[in-house]
């Protein structure tokens, strides 16, 4: 191979993205070519620089904005099979015009998102030999960024016992006129609390606020992430009682894929009640 052809393949080679035969050919050339050795060293240095995450990270507003869009779409999306064409374009920042309750829904969904990261963090892609240090550093930095965002809530969880958190939920539920922050706390408990009892109590406490779209959306989003069949059953009952048809896709999925037969059956029953014939 000529030097130019070797150098054009260097980035792929050092990333382990070339077939073994070609890798051997490239190595044989570089081993014997001082010019390509220098080029490889320079390419590796700049590839590492390029691979580093930027010094700045996105603000929490990005997560809030995206989750608000999802909530809005879930609240307003017709069944996909009936939609022939994509909807007309909305302004990019339509979510900013949502009522305050929808903005709070975003906060609740952020909590659900954190839960995804906490309970089911995806395994990092195995690094290649050439890029291992940079890749591991990237993962660590990204996790650190997420960690900063969830730190406050995790700290709260760590410093309060399950009994204390349960008491907080029950106290909130007993308030004659809980404010929106209190409702937000209930939703956060439902999405994030490690105790089944606390999550179960949060579902029960949220019944009083089932008229709020934020509450129904948060329950629907948390349902497929929930690990306890007991809490899932409570959530399904909640969504059925709230007659929230935006939960139909979630329930449909559960009715076929849930591991627990009682959850599967409950989702099927809920679907039967939420189908258009019942309205």
């Amino acid at each position, binding site marked *: 191979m000529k030097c130019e052809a070797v150098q054009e393949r260097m980035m792929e080679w050092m990333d382990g993205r070339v077939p073994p035969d070609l890798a051997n050919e490239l190595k044989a050339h570089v081993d014997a070519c001082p010019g390509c050795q220098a080029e490889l060293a320079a390419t590796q240095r*700049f590839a590492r620089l390029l691979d580093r*995450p930027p010094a*700045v990270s996105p603000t929490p507003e990005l997560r809030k904005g995206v989750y608000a869009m999802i909530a809005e779409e879930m609240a307003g999306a017709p069944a996909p099979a009936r939609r022939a064409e994509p909807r007309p374009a909305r302004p990019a920042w339509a979510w900013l015009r949502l009522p305050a309750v929808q903005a709070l829904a975003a906060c609740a*969904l952020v909590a659900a*998102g954190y839960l995804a990261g906490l309970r089911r963090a995806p395994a990092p892609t195995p690094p290649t030999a050439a890029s291992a240090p940079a890749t591991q550093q990237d993962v660590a930095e990204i996790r650190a960024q997420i960690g900063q965002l969830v730190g406050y809530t995790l700290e709260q969880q760590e410093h309060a016992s399950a009994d204390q958190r349960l008491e907080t939920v029950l106290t909130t539920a007993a308030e004659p006129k809980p404010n929106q922050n209190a409702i937000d706390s209930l939703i956060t408990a439902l999405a994030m609390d490690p105790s089944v009892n606390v999550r179960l109590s949060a579902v029960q406490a949220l019944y009083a606020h089932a008229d709020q779209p934020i509450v129904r959306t948060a329950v629907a*989003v948390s349902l*497929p992430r*929930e690990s306890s069949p007991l809490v899932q059953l409570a959530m399904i009952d909640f969504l059925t009682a709230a007659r929230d048809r935006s939960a139909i*896709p979630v329930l449909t999925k559960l009715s076929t894929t849930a591991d627990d037969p009682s959850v599967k059956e409950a989702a099927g029953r809920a679907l039967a009640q939420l189908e258009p014939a019942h309205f």
Partner: protein
Amino acid sequence: MLDATPASDHALMLAVRNGRLEAMGELFERHHGALFGFLFKLLGERTAAEDVAQIVFQRMLKYRHTYREEGHFSAWMYHMARRCAADQARKSARAPAPTDPSTLDSAADAQPAAADLAAARDDRDLLQAALARLEPADREVLLLSRLQELSFAEVADIMECSAGAARVRAHRAMQTLRAHFFQLQQKVAS
């Protein structure tokens, strides 16, 4: 309880397409960090990168019906990201421009003073300035080629050229980037 093993990106996006919109939250958690990083390096500005990242997720929701059974989520997402970033660059007067080394301290907004930063940050700022000096298409292909989840064939597809052309362009962009970097380094030192 749902499946114990995490669903693939592709499975999640198919679920979104089929009406399980909440699965987009999981995709966001998996990919927004890398997407933001790509956009920040491409656009050189935090607010713009964040705005475009949000638009990308908005478009993925809006155009979810166009996601194909045989699709590759990352390739689809970065295809949209490139388009959205181009739109942003056209609309905004903040499109990447050659950076004066004397203003490198303010290259990233809301950053502490350069004197307080580790030496590694100097390289970061210089790199960002060098990236800004590349032709937009060179910057795009170089940054796309560093995304390990994309093959060169997919980079080429996103860039709408052949894999060979993408490979050559990425290589030359890397050489140009290095030249700009060393020039800027000398200016800062002098």
